[in-house]
């Protein structure tokens, strides 16, 4: 097992001016090694071996409650390797190393019978906490003496901040492109050519779907926030399934209904296309200068996948054109962008989760590849009721396999401040 400490520091606020670096090492496959937990005696600083202080955390059940025992309550500054073994504690599934409620390192999926797992952090002097949720004593202090030498460049917070500003640029770009595509759609509608309008509709759809979770909260200036009349998300992206009769049909799906269900462009269609262009312009103005916190990206990504589950897979979004897979792909791409901007920071915090989310994105993308067809509008086959009936459960399960780990990201990036 090779240890390759990353070059990173976390700025700590209260008790320590920190320099810490973190790397996680898989514990190898279960059962592949004998336990490395030494006789646990809670005395003095942890012994150093292979350049790192060695601390064992042992999880046991004492007959009723689960306990989390740390064999050495302190270590010298520098690399510290925590080896976690769950001997019999059924209530404890994870162990975290924290500093002022920030997660510095952790191991999840702990259960009795599995081989020990390790993680290593480079710690400087100060007080840390070992958090074992589910244990009788869940939080225990761990102290580090001295100053860590070595690399202390760039904090997780700074890495994440760089990601969020990059994401802001991405969102602004998508909103700009949406304006262009909606203008093109309006021109096609105005020309009265249904086939051309359909093609331009398919091209305009993905932009909103990529960033929907960032911009779905805007209301027109001066309007009642509880009414759909001024709700920009409603005006741009309402569907038949969430129709508010008081406000009526608007936006993309009103145009979709005219083009596919009615098969013709009327004066009403042209009015809707013009209104859509105006509303998208307003959205662009309102979203200028938006800034994001790391958890906004994480929650936004999870929100986009929720959109996939609730409206795309069910075929509710594009009820007339059956372009749901085009929107599906856009939702996934938007989520992936948000994740990509978080990834450098998240990797420092939780490399296992980062790896899981990366792998699950690949699974979903590969599934989507099955439906690609360049000759179809938007490049994906129509999500017809027949196809939906056959494939929806499989797609839904795969998206859920991505959404679950993704929904755990917000907590991790939010605490890395």
């Amino acid at each position, binding site marked *: 097992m090779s240890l390759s400490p990353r070059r990173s520091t976390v700025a700590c606020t209260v008790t320590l001016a920190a320099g810490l670096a973190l790397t996680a090492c898989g514990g190898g*496959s279960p059962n592949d090694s004998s336990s490395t937990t030494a006789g646990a005696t809670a005395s003095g600083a942890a012994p150093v071996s292979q350049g790192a202080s060695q601390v064992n955390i042992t999880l046991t059940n004492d007959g009723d*409650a689960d306990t989390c025992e740390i064999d050495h309550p302190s270590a010298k500054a520098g690399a510290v390797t925590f080896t976690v073994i769950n001997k019999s504690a059924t209530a404890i599934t994870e162990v975290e190393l924290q500093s002022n409620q920030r997660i510095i390192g952790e191991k999840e999926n702990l259960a*009795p*019978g599995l081989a020990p797992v390790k993680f290593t952090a480079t710690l400087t002097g100060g007080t840390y906490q070992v958090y074992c949720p*589910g244990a009788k004593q*869940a939080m225990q*202090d761990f102290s580090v003496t001295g100053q860590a030498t070595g690399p202390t460049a760039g904090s997780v917070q700074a890495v994440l901040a760089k990601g969020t500003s990059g994401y802001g640029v991405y969102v602004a770009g998508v909103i700009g492109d949406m304006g262009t595509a909606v203008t093109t759609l309006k021109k096609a509608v105005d020309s009265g050519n249904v086939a051309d309008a359909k093609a331009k509709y398919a091209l305009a759809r993905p932009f909103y779907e990529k960033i929907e979770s960032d911009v779905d909260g805007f209301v027109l200036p001066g309007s009642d926030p509880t009414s759909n009349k001024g709700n920009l998300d409603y005006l741009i992206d309402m569907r038949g399934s969430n129709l508010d009769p008081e406000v009526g049909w608007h936006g993309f799906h009103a145009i979709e209904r005219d083009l596919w269900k009615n098969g013709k462009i009327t004066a009403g269609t042209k009015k809707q296309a013009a209104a859509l262009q105006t509303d998208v312009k307003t959205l662009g103005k309102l979203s200028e200068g938006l800034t994001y916190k790391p958890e906004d990206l994480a929650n936004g990504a999870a929100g986009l996948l929720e959109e996939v589950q609730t409206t795309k897979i069910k075929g509710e979004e594009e009820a007339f054109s059956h372009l749901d897979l085009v929107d599906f792909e856009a939702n996934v791409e938007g989520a992936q962008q948000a994740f990509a901007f978080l990834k450098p920071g998240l990797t420092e915090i939780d490399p296992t989760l980062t790896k899981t989310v990366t*792998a699950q994105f690949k699974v979903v993308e590969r599934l989507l590849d099955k439906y690609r067809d360049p000759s179809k509008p938007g490049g994906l086959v129509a999500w017809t009721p027949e196809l939906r009936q056959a494939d929806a459960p499989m797609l839904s399960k795969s998206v859920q396999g991505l959404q679950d780990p993704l929904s755990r990201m917000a907590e991790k990036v*939010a605490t890395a401040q």
Partner: protein
Amino acid sequence: MTDNLDPQQQAGLDRRRLLQGAAGGLLAGGALAGAATAYASSSSHSSSDAARSDKDTVDLSRTHPFYDQPHPAGISTPPQRHALFMTFDLVDRATRSDLQVLLARWSAAIAQLAKGRTIGAVQPARAGAVGADTGEAAGLDPAGLTVTVGLGSSIFDKRFGLEHRRPALLEELPDLPSDQIQPSLSGGDLSVQACADDPQVAYHAVRNLARMVRGTAETGWTVMGFGRASAGPGQETPRNLMGFKDGTRNISTPDDYDHFVWVTDDGWMSGGTYQVVRKIQMNLEIWDADDIADQQNIFGRTKSAGAPLTGHREMDTPDFHATGKDGKPAIPGTAHIALAAHENNGGTKILRRAYNYTDGINKYGQLDAGLLMIIYANDPDHFVKIQRRLGASDRLNEYIQHIGSGLWAIPPAPRSGHFIAEDLFI
């Protein structure tokens, strides 16, 4: 530093324990003292006590131990009132290590759930955190929950390097007469049978097991049993949806369990068994229109008392040689009990642990309901032999269809500190 304990979690545990304590008629002192006593009291309801005391009373504070038992829970355990059965399939990319983690996490979670505890925080302390437990059983009693995990023949392949560890008798079931098995209700890499006296407790257990393995294993098919249709020792024989007592002569003695249910001398499988699951749909409207004499001839028993047509009381031994006044057998040879009887199957018995189920109303506007038949046997061929006869000539076939089916190996109960089927990976 107990003040650092996740406050919600602590509150949740205390509440649960007080409820348990109250149910057991105990005084809970301080929170932790109360916890200890309440737990001790729950443990004292062993399954053998339960077996003797149970008729139709339900003690929701009852618990059944998960670890260190001679046999897995949920098989000889007196049948609880409700069941949720679900199958799972590992995703294509799942590895041997994923399967180990899955079985280890499930084992730890089942141990928690069987004590009536959550599997983690319902309301985490950090605002951005997602709850580890979904929460719908928080504050509910353990309700005698047992969760029994089975391994399908499909996991013993190259994906997990287990092709040489396949249990001796684990194969796909053969096609049987009258089978109308739907592919979507067939087989699965893993099976989970959760039984409890509170349906919400059973549902919570399976839902959370499914949730914790998402990305590794996907749900296959499921049947929710709303009322037990088999009796354990000391329990009165319940009725199936046809209104009949079925399974009167179910396996009940330790000798029969040893002889017909538990696997012995088969390495890591010793102490375990095999599980056959059949989802049996009933044509209830048609059955309800059948006259009583015909219904009784089909089962071979009377409807009210459940007595064999050659006796007066339920427990009377049927006489398959007796003839009626017309000179014909008093119990027709094609009666359900005649075909299923061990006397007519070379002495073979199978353990039945069935539940009634309903899926609502079918597309023809008829009641969609039937029997979730769960069978345990130390040789799946015992079921196959009996079902061949039943499928070929049981008069019940006019009113039922077997639409779901699967066979799983049930590993022995894990020792404390270990997980289900851990020895399989050594």
